[in-house]
């Protein structure tokens, strides 16, 4: 063995412009996470993962490196997003949805962005698997996006995940202008009566079970996604396994979130990321988001027409999975027209439905693509 200067400087000699650019991308993600607090739980690890992956000769993403181990342990086999869904289910209160089961259809409408974007991506020349993966950004749901895109187009996992999570933070920015554009002042001022009802513990427990069995039977490919979410919710509502609920929503969720973020970030290597199509994904992702909201509003306007003007179309824009942010935006925009108009509870129903619907839509997309 002979120590040579060349060997010592191999890090410096392997610096590439692409790598440096990706380091900047990683730092920007960290900036968004830390200074802007855009989903920091995910964007901080993703940014760190991107930096680790793009340091010259990075041993962390080499075969057997830490990020390689984490990616194989939970991203490649889809374990991590499902574990996160258990935790999300264990933290989610589907009460507003149960109080208002008719709101469920709004959640369905809010998934149009997935398919609309899929079509646009096909037009832009992406192949079918890629297009479907890009479309899933329209679910505006991190774990679903990771699950679906990893199965259909793993080489696009990085940019798709970044879109899914960072656009989720933009709900308060993107949603209001579309709402104002697509509704009239009069429509936004429509008041809707709200009668509170108590949901029994039994109903709260039967709901997740029902979803698992019905959706699992009709769309088997959706079972892992919706099943994990509803398992978490079943544990929460059962009230008898607080230790498991706590572990799912705290220890497991936190640990897996860290590992998942690092692993996803590590897929953002310069050679895979720095392509024109990444730019396409970023643009299409934001389009998917807008299409979701527009479709929800349009469907709600249709319901308003059917009900003879008694349904506030704003509520339709909450049929997406960004829960409960989206419902709060509806409440805020509604109050701009009529400070005494309280749409929150209706919007919460639509929003909870959007969360369920986006997970189901992910499973349906997988089933239609013949993957899973």
């Amino acid at each position, binding site marked *: 063995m002979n120590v040579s200067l060349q060997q010592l400087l191999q890090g410096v000699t392997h610096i590439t412009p692409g790598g440096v650019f990706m380091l900047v991308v990683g730092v920007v993600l960290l900036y968004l996470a830390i200074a802007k607090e855009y989903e920091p739980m995910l964007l901080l690890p993703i940014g760190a993962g991107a930096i680790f992956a793009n340091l010259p000769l990075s041993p962390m993403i080499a075969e057997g490196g830490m990020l390689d181990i984490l990616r194989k342990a939970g991203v490649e086999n889809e374990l991590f997003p499902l574990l996160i869904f258990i935790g999300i289910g264990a*933290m*989610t*209160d589907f009460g*507003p*949805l149960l109080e208002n*089961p*008719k709101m*469920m*259809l709004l959640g*369905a*409408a809010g*998934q149009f962005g997935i*398919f*609309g974007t*899929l*079509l646009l991506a*096909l*037009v832009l020349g992406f*192949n*079918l698997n890629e*297009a479907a993966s890009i479309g899933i950004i329209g679910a505006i749901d991190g774990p679903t996006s990771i699950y679906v895109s990893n199965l259909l187009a793993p080489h696009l996992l990085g940019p798709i995940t970044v879109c899914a999570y960072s656009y989720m933070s933009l709900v308060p920015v993107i949603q209001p202008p579309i709402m104002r554009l697509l509704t009239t*002042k009069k429509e936004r001022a429509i008041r809707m009566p709200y009668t*509170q*009802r*108590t*949901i029994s513990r*039994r*109903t709260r427990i*039967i*709901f997740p079970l*029902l*979803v698992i069995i*019905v*959706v699992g039977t*009709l769309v088997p490919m959706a079972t892992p996604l919706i099943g994990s979410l509803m398992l978490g919710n079943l544990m*929460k509502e059962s*009230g*008898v396994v*607080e*230790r498991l*609920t*706590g572990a799912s929503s705290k220890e497991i969720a936190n640990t897996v979130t860290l590992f998942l973020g690092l692993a996803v970030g590590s897929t953002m290597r310069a050679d895979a990321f720095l392509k024109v199509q990444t730019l396409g994904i970023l643009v299409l992702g934001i389009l998917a988001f807008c299409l979701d909201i527009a479709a929800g509003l349009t469907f709600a306007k249709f319901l308003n027409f059917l009900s003879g003007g008694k349904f506030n179309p704003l509520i339709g824009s909450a049929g997406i999975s960004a829960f*409960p942010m989206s419902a709060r935006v509806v409440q805020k925009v509604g109050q*701009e027209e*009529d*400070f*005494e108009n*309280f749409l*929150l*509870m209706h919007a*919460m129903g639509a929003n909870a*439905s959007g969360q*369920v*619907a986006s997970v*189901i*839509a992910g499973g*349906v*997309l997988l089933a*239609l*693509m013949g993957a899973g």
Partner: protein
Amino acid sequence: MDSLQIGLQLTLFGMGIVFFLLAVMALLISLLLRFDRAPAETMEESAPSREFPEGLDADALAAITIAVRAHRIVRRKQAAPAMRKHQPGTLPSRWVGIGRTRQTASWRPIRRG
């Protein structure tokens, strides 16, 4: 344009199935809710104008209420001591709570524009 046709087919089927599934769920939940009775019970519980039993002032009553609640929690814990860790309650339900409170408020609106 062949792949676009597939795309349109996917969109049609996809949105159709999603709507269908959620409609089925909505129907089933509606059926389920038929069996949920006594929706107003919880409100009554915290009615403010309840009369005190004879010979008890408000302080004594408060103390008893607290003791009874504490005792209930203890009993529940004893029933399955290793299982309990957290009290129920989630993030969204806080917002729900705020929403419910607001539904009953009644100040005058500040109109914009």
